């Protein structure tokens, strides 16, 4: 599926669906080889799922990695990042980041933790911490 990447600039038949109100039309999936869904391990990553660089991540120069993959790795290198932050900082749409992260997970470059469901979370101690933290802001 990834072997017919033709980069940007291709005029697809879908271009006629231009819709002013909806914002500019883009072809953000060119860099994912047209894949709009992550591979099985990337599943549907939550916007606040946290992405951590794997300690034993393979070399970032790995030929399988595109520039956007490397951008994401660089962003995770300093600290754990959420999916939303990666998208905002890399200036990539969320769906693209999900696909790229799916690749990185499969390659063992990063690990992604599912957010703790709030039904299990609001541990009183943590909420207290949040409230105190907000006050101190």
């Amino acid at each position, binding site marked *: 599926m990834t072997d017919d990447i033709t980069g940007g600039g291709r005029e697809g038949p879908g271009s006629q669906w231009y819709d002013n109100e909806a914002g500019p039309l883009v072809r953000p999936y060119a860099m994912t080889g047209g894949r709009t869904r992550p591979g099985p391990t990337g599943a549907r990553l939550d916007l606040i799922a946290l992405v951590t660089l794997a300690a034993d991540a393979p070399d970032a120069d790995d030929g399988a990695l595109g520039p956007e993959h490397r951008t994401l790795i660089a962003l995770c290198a300093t600290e754990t990042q959420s999916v939303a932050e990666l998208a905002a900082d890399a200036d990539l749409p969320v769906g693209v980041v999900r696909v790229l992260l799916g690749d990185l997970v499969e390659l063992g470059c990063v690990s992604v933790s599912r957010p703790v469901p709030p039904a299990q979370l609001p541990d009183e101690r943590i*909420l207290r911490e949040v409230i105190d933290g*907000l006050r101190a802001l």
Partner: protein
Amino acid sequence: MVSEKSDATDGDTTALALKILVAGGFGVGKTTLVGAVSEIRPLRTEETLSEAGRLVDDTDGVDRKVTTTVAMDFGRITIRSGLSLYLFGTPGQDRFWFLWDELAQGALGAVVLADTRRLADCFPAVDYFEHRHIPFVVAVNCFTGARRHDAPSVLRALDLDPGTPVVLCDARDRDSGKEVLIRLVEYAGRMHTARLLDSVR
């Protein structure tokens, strides 16, 4: 289901992320509020037009699908290392409702911004969170020129469940925005405790 926390012996070493939504009608101050309390950045999500416009065309894979960008506000508040609040300003347009479902999933709670000059604009958001049992507070953005309403009258006008917090705020003011978030976190905690008690009763 096993939570992340149980993987670690010390809860403090596990990074936690909490999601709060900021919703409300057009131009009610969502972007302003997120920007007042956090470092705001635009977040682009892209949706295939088939999804947005219901032109179902899922047969030939996705290579040719044209997408449209939907921008959301996004801000992070770092409470401490390993504990952050993430704020998402929901797109105001009705046609992007399907985005809300993803945003709402796993949210700690929501802030519904309201403008008393056009209160009805926040009905859809109120309905949405009520139906999904997502704790929310109504924050009345006190625009200059708008008549001051007291919280109880807003509560009645919106026909809210009696316990729902209504806070008057100035979305431009950081302290005011912080107060709104604090009220929400407190309320979410109370709702959660109440549900826990219900479930063991």
